[in-house]
């Protein structure tokens, strides 16, 4: 590889950005499908109950109705984890949450589909329902799933290091309970799918709002009992995901079942309300955290008990509860850790993976506890973090490898940029500064579906036109992964970016990819792209050697042309020679595999959290608190993230800003609420994502630690900064008004109540003093 980077490292507008700003980008709901039937889903109004009867005869008889299906039409369950596929496509026998699909119709138009749904008669005998983790864990609670008594989906008990000795050695200990509300992704594009079934050939074409087209392919084959070769999955433009679409969702399978039942094409566009009910958000989480430090600020031990309310089905739940424990490590040098995690079922829409999967809520607790300990010990919060930095390369007590570590540099930048030393504690009443750190994985080192194949495979195609086509299964969902792959290929081959096109996520054309989650794509698919480009370059060099009549070792690839001594051959000439030599169009393959030593500790669940590269972030948040209204205004954020190397600095900055901002929503206003299982938040008005009026300037500094295994040294860039925001905000509020808020979101009413409580306690204390 040439040393001077021509393409990577350059701020690069998205290669599909022009389509997005001109309205030409075709999202799933935009796909042309003349005459497509309209799909609609009938959803349960009961949170828990036994289905006595679903009568679809009247609906089926309605003119214009082409198919009506129920759980009877699909006996197989599905799910993202091979060990926990317990979700029916449409409820069978038992319904477990309000909004669960009971039946679905395909009709000539929306009016007929709605009329058909109204004709379906449903009788459900209610069962006692659990809406909180505590209720679900109560001794007399009715089990949602017969194989999970006590509604305990998974408990985790991990011990690393001598925790008791650690606490005994601590000079300061904080033990406190923190709680975080359930939140949702609220990606701007509602869910949609378009499925075409050809009954003559028995073939299915599926296009859907998916981050995981390959998993969708697997689940379609399973639930429709189809030969995988009879299925083609194509990903259109995707309007965001943030984890909402990293597992196959019921509406996708329902759309395919309707297409087969009707022998045609079915378009399913979910409403915003249905998109919320499909859910897979971050679970409501309670964390009892105990943390010890020495007087000098060294961490001695951590004990965490975490309860996650996971909703009605498994989804990613086992992974989420394992992440929450594993990622207590990997950020600081923490010698001893005890983790007890409980993932609990409840009669609510299923939770899943959301940006910062598993790490965010425990990081809030950990950093909030650190901030309190710093105050108690009389240490500066920055000094406390600096006392516990890791030294890469290293391995944490729970088996996580850390190969590159730029947290110290991140701390230095945000401390200086925010004017921390001069300004903290001197901003005047009601204003404050707070800081926190966070980290995240660059892809899970052990894939969910272990097949023995590489973690990522990319094909590069070169034909007569001299253009490079990157064929990748990686799903660009707006994060800019296709642009990264184009940059990587252009860089290695020394061709302009404009000569590279990317064809992504079409199972008929592109090699399979596990999908866009756990920030795996840049790291794994990026490395595979580099490998493919190198393989292609070798073949071009071989052709150039013949053309230039020189040994291969004498051929120099000078970026777009090839030299051998004085002789020069252009890229076009070498392409022609290579095509003639190899008998036509060339396809070069590149792959990437995370080596076994990176795949985590040997303990049960040890694969979760293991990665080849952690990103690191530090941030400072400045707030103004209105004591009259309880409103918190975020004035400014300074964030630095070690992403190894910024392949596309423009996109890295955008991802970091987006992650910080999403953390702000969780910290201040976002919450999915339920009343007896009824979603109270299922609109963009009731689920309060910050508007542009609420959103602060976010100054970003990129730290490049050049990870030894990352593509060009790159690591994760889009999740790591999220988890730092809520604790940095809580610390800023503590700095501003002297109250440590321990429950997210910190809404005006909660802050007002806390202020009022403190005032009452103060009055009481004064009264007692007088008495």
């Amino acid at each position, binding site marked *: 590889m040439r040393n001077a980077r021509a393409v990577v490292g350059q701020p690069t507008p998205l290669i599909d950005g022009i389509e997005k*700003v001109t309205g030409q980008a075709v999202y799933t709901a935009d796909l042309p499908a003349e005459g497509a039937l309209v799909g609609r889903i009938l959803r349960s109004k009961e949170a828990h109950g036994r289905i006595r009867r679903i009568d679809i005869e009247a609906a089926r008889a309605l003119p214009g109705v082409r198919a009506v299906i129920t759980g009877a039409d699909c006996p197989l369950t599905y799910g993202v984890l091979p060990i926990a596929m317990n979700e029916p496509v449409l409820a069978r026998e038992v319904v477990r949450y309000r909004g669960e699909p009971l039946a679905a119709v395909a009709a000539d138009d929306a009016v007929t589909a709605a009329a058909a749904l109204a004709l379906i008669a449903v009788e459900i005998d209610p069962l006692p329902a659990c809406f909180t983790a505590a209720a679900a864990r109560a001794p007399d609670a009715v089990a949602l799933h017969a194989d999970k008594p006590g509604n305990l989906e998974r408990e985790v008990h991990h011990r690393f290091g001598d925790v008791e000795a650690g606490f005994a050695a601590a000079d300061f200990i904080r033990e406190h309970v923190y709680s975080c509300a359930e939140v949702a992704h609220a990606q701007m594009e509602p869910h949609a799918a378009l499925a075409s079934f050809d009954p003559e050939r028995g073939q299915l074409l599926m296009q859907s709002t998916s981050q995981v087209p390959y998993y969708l392919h697997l689940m379609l084959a399973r639930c429709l009992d189809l030969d995988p070769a009879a299925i083609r999955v194509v990903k259109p433009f995707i309007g965001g995901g943030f984890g909402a679409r990293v597992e196959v969702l019921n509406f996708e399978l329902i759309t395919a079942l309707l297409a087969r039942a009707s022998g045609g094409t079915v378009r399913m566009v979910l409403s915003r309300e249905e998109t919320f009910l499909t859910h897979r958000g971050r679970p409501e989480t309670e964390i009892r955290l105990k943390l010890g430090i020495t007087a000098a600020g060294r961490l001695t031990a951590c004990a965490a008990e975490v309860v996650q309310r996971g909703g009605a089905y498994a989804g990613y739940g086992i992974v989420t509860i394992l992440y929450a424990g594993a990622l207590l490590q990997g950020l600081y040098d923490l010698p001893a850790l005890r983790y007890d995690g409980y993932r609990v079922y409840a009669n609510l829409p299923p939770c899943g993976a959301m940006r910062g999967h598993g790490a965010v809520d425990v990081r809030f607790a950990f950093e909030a506890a650190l901030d309190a300990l710093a105050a108690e010990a009389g240490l500066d919060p920055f000094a406390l973090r600096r006392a516990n930095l890791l030294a890469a390369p290293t391995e944490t007590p729970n088996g996580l490898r850390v190969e590159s570590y730029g947290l110290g540099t991140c701390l230095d930048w945000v401390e200086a940029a925010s004017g921390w030393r001069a300004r903290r504690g001197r901003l005047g009443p009601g204003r404050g500064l707070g800081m926190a750190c966070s980290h995240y994985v660059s892809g899970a080192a052990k894939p969910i579906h272990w097949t023995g194949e590489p973690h990522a495979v990319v094909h590069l195609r070169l034909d007569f036109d001299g253009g490079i086509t990157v064929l990748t299964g990686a799903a660009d969902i707006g994060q800019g992964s296709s642009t990264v792959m184009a940059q990587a290929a252009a860089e290695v081959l020394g061709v302009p970016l404009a000569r590279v096109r990317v064809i992504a996520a079409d199972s008929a054309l592109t090699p399979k990819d596990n999908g866009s989650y756990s920030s795996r794509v840049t790291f794994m698919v990026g490395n595979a792209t580099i490998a493919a480009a190198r393989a292609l370059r070798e073949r071009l060099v071989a052709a150039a050697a013949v053309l230039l009549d020189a040994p291969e070792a004498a051929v120099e690839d000078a970026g777009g042309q090839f030299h051998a001594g004085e002789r020069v051959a252009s890229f076009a000439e070498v392409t022609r020679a290579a095509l003639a030599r190899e008998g036509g169009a060339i396809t070069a393959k590149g792959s990437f595999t995370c080596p076994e030593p990176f795949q985590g500790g040997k303990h049960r669940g040890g694969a979760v959290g293991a990665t080849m590269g952690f990103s690191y972030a530090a941030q400072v948040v400045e707030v103004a608190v209105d004591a009259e209204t309880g409103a918190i205004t975020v004035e400014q954020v300074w964030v630095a993230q070690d992403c190894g190397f910024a392949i596309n600095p423009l996109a890295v900055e955008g*991802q970091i800003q987006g992650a910080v901002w999403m953390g*702000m929503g969780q910290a201040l206003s976002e919450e999915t609420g339920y009343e007896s299982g009824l979603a109270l938040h299922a609109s963009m008005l009731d689920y309060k994502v910050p508007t*542009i009026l609420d959103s602060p300037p976010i100054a970003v500094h990129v730290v490049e630690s050049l990870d030894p295994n990352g593509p060009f040294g790159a690591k994760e860039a889009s999740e790591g900064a999220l988890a730092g925001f809520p604790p940095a905000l809580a610390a800023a509020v503590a700095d501003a008004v002297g109250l440590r808020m321990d429950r997210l979101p910190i809404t005006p009413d909660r802050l007002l109540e806390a202020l009022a409580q403190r005032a009452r306690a103060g009055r009481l204390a004064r009264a007692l003093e007088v008495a």
Partner: protein
Amino acid sequence: MQMQPDAPPAAPRRFRLNGRDRSVTVPDHALLIDTLRETLRLTGTKQGCDGGECGACTVLIDSVPRLACLTRTGECEGRVVETIEGLARQGRMNRVQRAFHEQLGTQCGYCTPGMVMAAEALLRRVPHPTEPEIRAALAGNLCRCTGYVKIIAAVQAAAGEG
């Protein structure tokens, strides 16, 4: 999208759409978003919510930003309607589109058509807006990707060009 079975008879509606005179025959209560997306196949205008909450369907009617999901097609009679597809000239992005592209004011792109139309309306009315004016003008348009930082930068860049 939800038409009533006993819909009143459709009448032709004439308006100027993206520089062309158009006539569409749709029921009186047909929403503009459905007429654009389904009847005219202009799918650049997006639906992101169940009505009036997200701004993704923002179009311009006589240069004023309006939500196509809350506007009856009939209200457009004789008016000038512009959608995201109408901003480019000979396939070239206009200044707002170019700025959103170059400044990464778009990530997933789903809110982008509405965001660009709202910004376009602002810049026609206020060629050099202050940051608070930009925020006020885009307050009805939700974005879940950018944190709005680069959206504001894009509008400022577009204003600098104009």
